[in-house]
């Protein structure tokens, strides 16, 4: 009985197994494309050689402090959003879950805004991502409490809509109270997201926090699979559901909170990419985690290259591009979901 089954198993897992390396290569190529893409034409390879040789030329500086951090942040933030979306969808058994839709991103923006404009973050310090993480953790906990009370799919989404509106309004309020005259105009950055003119400092600030968040979330993969049969079955399979919840809330807060603190809230990435990878890897939640992370990175990189290639000046915020793709997708999913009950 087992003998004829085995080839079929290998056959099925092959696309999934090749998908992660393929997506990783795609992300690598998009990082290079993003580095090559910008507002000033210069010899990138010469600049790279200068940079490696430690020659402090202007092209080397633009490469290492503008182009590379921008590309890396695009990949890091995108990976965080994609992975968090896949984890949240699996954990809540809800195909509409997404850090943006559930209000986690806007709450992270609120936390970062309060820390940044009050001057707590100084020029640029750990306080900034910690503010974002605190906001994200608050929202993730609130969503969790609602989910524990058995709120249905659409109920959770509506709660998320409420939470993001509230966080957005409080962000606007905080920016209006900010003493700096430019603050009020910067709400667009926080609510729509951008990677313009970031520096390597931003990368170092969020990278370690994100890595911890990713590991925490990836460690719940098996539990997410078990949870697809309900909490009782998952617990009977030996999963500590309190620990799983804690790892997901902490991981999502670390990854999304620190990302939003340096890039603003970029919506819909976490919603869209798990649905894009599922046809390739199947519906098992753990199978979509890594591919969703890489696909999220690819999506944000493509969006960030697009805003620079599009002739709109000043360049579009990233959230505008992701919403142009993501919002119709969400509406389609809602109709599909309603059709299925």
């Amino acid at each position, binding site marked *: 009985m087992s003998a004829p089954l085995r080839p079929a198993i290998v056959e099925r897992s092959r696309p999934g197994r090749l998908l992660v390396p393929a997506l990783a290569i795609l992300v690598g190529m998009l990082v290079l494309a993003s580095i090559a893409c910008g507002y000033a*034409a210069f010899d990138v390879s010469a600049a790279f050689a200068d940079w490696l040789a430690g020659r402090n030329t202007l092209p080397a500086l633009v490469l290492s402090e503008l182009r590379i951090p921008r590309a890396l942040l695009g990949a890091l933030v995108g990976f965080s959003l994609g992975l968090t979306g896949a984890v949240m969808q699996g954990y809540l058994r809800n195909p509409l879950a997404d850090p943006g839709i559930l209000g986690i991103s806007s709450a992270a923006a609120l936390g970062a805004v309060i820390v940044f*404009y009050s001057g707590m973050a100084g020029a640029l310090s750990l306080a900034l991502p910690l503010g974002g993480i605190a906001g994200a953790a608050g929202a993730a906990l609130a969503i969790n409490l609602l989910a524990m009370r058995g709120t249905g799919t659409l109920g959770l989404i509506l709660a998320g809509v409420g939470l993001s509106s509230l966080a957005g309004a409080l962000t606007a309020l905080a920016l209006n109270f900010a003493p700096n*005259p*430019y603050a009020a105009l910067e709400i667009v950055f926080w609510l729509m997201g951008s990677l313009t003119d970031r520096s390597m400092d931003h990368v170092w600030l969020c990278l370690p926090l994100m890595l911890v968040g990713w590991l925490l979330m990836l460690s719940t993969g098996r539990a997410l699979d078990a949870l697809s049969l309900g909490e009782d079955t998952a617990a009977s399979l030996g999963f500590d559901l309190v620990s799983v919840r804690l790892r997901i809330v902490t991981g999502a807060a670390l990854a999304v909170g620190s990302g939003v603190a340096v890039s603003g809230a970029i919506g819909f990435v976490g919603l869209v990419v798990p649905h894009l990878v599922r046809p390739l890897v199947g519906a098992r939640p753990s199978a979509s985690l890594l591919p969703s992370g890489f696909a999220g990175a690819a999506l944000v990189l493509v969006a960030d290259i697009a805003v620079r290639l599009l002739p709109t000046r000043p360049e579009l915020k990233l959230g505008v591009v992701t919403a142009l793709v993501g919002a119709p997708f969400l509406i389609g999913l809602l109709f599909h979901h309603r059709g299925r009950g």
Partner: protein
Amino acid sequence: MRNLALLSAATLAACLAAGIVAAAEAPLPAHPVRVVSMNLCADELVLRLADRDQIAAVTWLARDPRGSSVFAEAAGVPLTRGLSEEVIALKPDLVIAGAFTTRSAVGMLKRIGMPMLELGLPGDFEGVRAQIRTVAKALGHPDRGEALVADLDRGLETVAAAPRPLRALVMRPNGFTVAPGSLGDAVIRAAGLVNVAAEIGRDRSGQVPLEAAAFAEADLIVLDDSGSGTPSLADALLHHPVLEQLRREGRTVSIPNRLWNCPGSQVAEVVKRLAKAARERTVLQ
């Protein structure tokens, strides 16, 4: 204060517009005694030219040390936020407004017959002189206007222009620059410099991406890093590693935005500082 950046952005974005005085519907009084100014640039001229007891109110922006060149003079003068209700309540006999700001309030005040003087955005020094004279005449002090114009001209005459036509690029918060054809552009040229924004100028809004600024081969990058000390993304950008490097190379010069937010005699000071920075930079090179 919140709208400061927006105002200066609009000021800059509209700098191509020359124009000095728009026709007023209601006749202007020869000697107004209750003057309300509804725009920062009007505030500056009113505070310099009018008697203190002629001024009923200026805008709240006049008191912001970062944006206003008359913040000291504005102390103790009543403020408005440029809302039509506030202005009507003050029963002014002359309202001075900008041609590009608080348009709905201005329209309302004109409809109810308020004596209104609208100021455009001059693109050269001749326009500045004309605007000073117009406001001075409307305030009933043409002599003070002549004195202020003489101030400006004296300031411009004493400037020793840069020895070489160095390339200058203005980077205001959020990357706004000085577009060709504007007063800022005239100021740069008066200092004997070349405005690099004219070359980059593919951007309708007047924003310069940081890396375009880095590669503009500007000898002088003009910033206002006399920040308020309170954080914003706009100010944070001025400390980006790329600009820090240019600063270390001595390629930046800091000039407060308040000196050339508005047309007035104070712009001569900008010409002077630019020329001085250019001389120092020439020696360095």
